[in-house]
C-alpha cells in the first residue's frame, strides 16, 4: 500500500530530534513569566512569521483543508482568499493588534479586565479555555488516522506515535515556553514548507491540473467553481468567514501572542503582512491536494455495471452494499471502489428527493474526503519523499501542539485559575501555574481524542468550537478599543448571547446550520454589546486610559 520504510523513519526521526534539541537549547534563558509567554518581546519579522504560520499549520490543517477541497472543489479556495485579504488588512492597518501590543498585555482576556472588569476577563477566559481545548482536542484523533495511512502503521501503534508527539511538544513548551517556540518554530517551518512544496509538485505530477478540473466538473454535480451559488457555501458562509478570520487574526490567543511577542507594534504588523501570503497558501495548497485526490481516485475507479430496476430498490441495494463493505474499502484505501457507489447513491437520492439517502451519501462522502488525500500520498510518494513528507507533517503537528499548549495554558492559568484564587500571585507562582496547566492540557487532549467522535466535517467542528468565544471576544475588544461608551454590562451580554448561539449548532435537535449559527453569534454579540452599553452605561475605563 505504502512504500514507507526505514529510510523514511530515519528522516522523520532526525527532524524530530532536531526540533527537540532546538527547543531545549534555550531552556536556561527563561527567567520570568514575560520570557515564558512573550519571549521577552524580542521577536523579529522572519522568525515571527515562521512561528505564527507553523503554529497555525498542523497535520489537521492539511487534513481538513484537503477534505474541504475534495467536497467543494475550487469553490473552497474562497476561504484562502478571505484569509489573505483579512490578514493583509490587519497587517496594513494594525487593526486591534497594534493597540493590544501597546497595552503591554500577555493574554487577550487580560485587556478585558483592564477595560471592563475582572469578571469579564474570567468569563472570556473560561470560554476560551473550553472552546480552545475542545478545538485542540480532536487534533490527535484526525492526525493519527492520517499518519496511520501514510506510514502503514497499525492504528494501535499510531496512538503511541501521537503520544510521543504530544510528549515532545509538552517537554520543550513546558520548559522553554515562547523562547523555545520561536526557535523550534523556525526549524519546523523550514521543514514543513519544504515538504509542502515537494508534495504539491508530486500531486500535480500524479494527476495534472486539467485532470483536477475535469474531476470537479464530473464529480461534484455542477458545484465546485462558484462559491456564491454553492448550497453549502454561499454569501452567508463568506460573510461568516470574513468575521471569523478577522477574529482569528486579532484575538485568537496563539496568534495574538505573536504580536504581543514582537519587538514593537510595527514589527507585529509586518509579521501579519508577510503572513497573509503564507496563509493564502496554507488554505489553497492542501485544498488542491484534496482536489488532486478526487481526480486521482476518480481516474482509477473501476466501471461498475449500472443497476437496473426501481430507483428506490437501487438505493436500498447501494445502502446494503455500502453498509457491508464501505468501512473495509475505506480502511484499505480502495477509494476508487466506494466513491462511484456513493456518487450514485447521492444522484439517486437527489432525483427521488430522498433526504435520508442524501444524508447517508453525504456522510460517507465526507468520510472519504477525510482520507482520500493521505491515501493518494501513500500511493504516489516514493521512499525518501515519504520520509520528507512525514518530517514536514510531524514538524507541523508538534509546532501546533506546542503553540496551542502555551496559548490555552496561558489563558487557563492567567485568566481563569489566577483570578479565581482571588489574590495576587507572584511571578514565580504564575510561571509554575502556567507550566502545570501545559501539563494538564496535554493530558486532557490525549484523553479527549480517544473518546470523542467528530460530528460532520472537521472544518465545521473546528470553526464552531472556535466561534464559541471568537465573536464576543472580538466584539468586546473592538468596542473596548474604539468605542468610549462600551460598558461592563454590554461585555457580559455580548458573551452570553454570542456563546449561546454558537452552542446551538452543537445541539442536533435545534437543526441550526453552521453558517447560520456563526453569523447569528456575531450579530447577537454585537447587539448585546450595544444594547447592554446603552441601557447600562456602568463603569468601564475609556480606551485612552488602558495602556501599558
Amino acid at each position, binding site marked *: 500500500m505504502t512504500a514507507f520504510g526505514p529510510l523514511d523513519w530515519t528522516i522523520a526521526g532526525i527532524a524530530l530530534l532536531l526540533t527537540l534539541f532546538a527547543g531545549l537549547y*534555550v531552556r*536556561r*534563558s527563561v*527567567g520570568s513569566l514575560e520570557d515564558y509567554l512573550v519571549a*521577552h518581546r*524580542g*521577536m*523579529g*519579522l*522572519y*522568525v515571527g*512569521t*515562521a512561528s505564527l504560520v507553523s503554529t497555525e499549520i498542523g497535520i489537521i490543517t492539511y487534513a481538513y483543508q484537503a477534505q474541504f477541497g475534495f467536497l467543494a472543489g*475550487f469553490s473552497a*479556495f474562497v476561504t*484562502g*482568499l478571505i484569509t489573505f485579504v483579512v490578514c493583509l488588512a490587519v497587517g496594513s492597518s494594525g487593526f486591534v493588534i497594534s493597540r493590544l501590543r501597546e497595552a503591554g498585555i500577555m493574554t487577550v482576556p487580560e485587556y478585558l479586565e483592564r477595560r471592563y472588569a475582572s469578571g469579564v476577563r474570567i468569563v472570556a477566559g473560561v470560554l476560551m479555555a473550553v472552546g480552545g481545548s475542545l478545538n485542540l482536542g480532536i487534533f490527535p484523533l484526525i492526525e493519527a488516522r492520517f499518519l496511520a495511512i501514510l506510514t502503514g502503521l497499525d492504528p494501535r501503534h499510531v496512538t503511541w506515535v501521537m503520544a510521543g508527539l504530544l510528549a515532545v511538544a509538552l517537554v520543550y513548551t513546558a520548559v522553554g515556553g515562547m*523562547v523555545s517556540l*520561536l*526557535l523550534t518554530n*523556525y526549524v519546523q*517551518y*523550514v521543514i514543513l*514548507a*519544504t515538504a*509542502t*512544496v515537494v508534495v*504539491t509538485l508530486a500531486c500535480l505530477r500524479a494527476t495534472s*491540473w486539467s485532470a483536477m*478540473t475535469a474531476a470537479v466538473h464530473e464529480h461534484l454535480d455542477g458545484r465546485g*467553481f*462558484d462559491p456564491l451559488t454553492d448550497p453549502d457555501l454561499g454569501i452567508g458562509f463568506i460573510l461568516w468567514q470574513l468575521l471569523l478570520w478577522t477574529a482569528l487574526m486579532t484575538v485568537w490567543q496563539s496568534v495574538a501572542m505573536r504580536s504581543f511577542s514582537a519587538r514593537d507594534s510595527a514589527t507585529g504588523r509586518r509579521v501579519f503582512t*508577510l503572513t497573509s*501570503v*503564507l496563509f*493564502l*497558501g*496554507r488554505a*489553497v*495548497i492542501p485544498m*488542491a491536494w484534496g482536489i488532486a485526490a478526487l481526480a486521482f481516485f476518480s481516474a482509477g475507479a473501476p466501471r461498475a455495471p449500472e443497476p437496473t430496476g426501481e430507483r428506490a430498490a437501487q438505493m436500498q441495494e447501494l445502502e446494503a452494499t455500502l453498509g457491508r463493505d464501505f468501512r473495509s474499502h475505506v480502511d484499505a484505501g480502495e477509494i476508487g471502489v466506494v466513491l462511484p457507489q456513493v456518487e450514485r447513491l447521492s444522484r439517486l437520492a437527489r432525483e427521488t428527493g430522498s433526504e435520508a439517502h442524501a444524508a447517508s451519501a453525504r456522510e460517507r462522502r465526507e468520510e472519504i474526503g477525510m482520507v482520500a488525500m493521505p491515501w493518494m500520498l501513500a500511493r504516489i510518494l516514493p521512499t525518501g519523499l515519504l520520509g520528507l513528507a512525514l518530517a514536514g507533517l510531524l514538524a507541523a503537528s508538534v509546532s501546533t501542539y506546542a503553540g496551542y499548549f502555551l496559548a490555552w495554558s496561558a489563558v487557563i492559568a492567567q485568566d481563569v485559575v489566577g483570578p479565581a484564587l482571588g489574590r495576587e500571585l507572584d511571578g514565580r507562582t504564575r510561571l509554575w501555574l502556567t507550566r502545570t496547566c501545559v501539563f494538564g492540557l496535554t493530558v486532557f487532549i490525549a484523553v479527549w481524542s480517544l473518546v470523542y467522535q467528530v460530528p460532520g466535517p472537521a472544518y465545521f467542528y473546528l470553526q464552531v468550537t472556535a466561534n464559541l468565544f471568537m465573536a464576543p471576544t472580538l466584539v468586546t475588544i473592538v468596542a473596548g478599543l474604539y468605542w468610549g461608551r462600551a460598558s461592563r454590562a454590554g461585555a457580559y451580554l455580548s458573551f452570553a448571547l454570542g456563546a449561546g448561539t454558537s452552542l446551538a449548532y452543537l445541539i442536533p435537535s435545534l437543526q441550526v446550520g453552521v453558517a447560520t449559527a456563526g453569523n447569528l453569534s456575531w450579530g447577537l454579540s454585537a447587539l448585546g454589546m450595544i444594547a447592554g452599553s446603552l441601557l447600562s452605561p456602568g463603569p468601564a475605563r475609556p480606551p485612552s486610559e488602558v495602556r501599558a
Partner: protein
Amino acid sequence: MSAQLFWHVVFWASFSAFTLVSLLIAVKGVAEIRLFLRELRSRDRG
C-alpha cells in the same frame, strides 16, 4: 475571465508566493535567530 481560469491563477499565485516567501524566511531567519540568541545570552550574563 472564466471561473476555471480564475482559480488556476489563484492556485499558481498562492503556490509561487508560498515558495518564495518560505525561501526568504529560511534565509533571513538565520540572522534573526542569531541575533535573538545573542540577546538572550548577553541578558543572561548581565
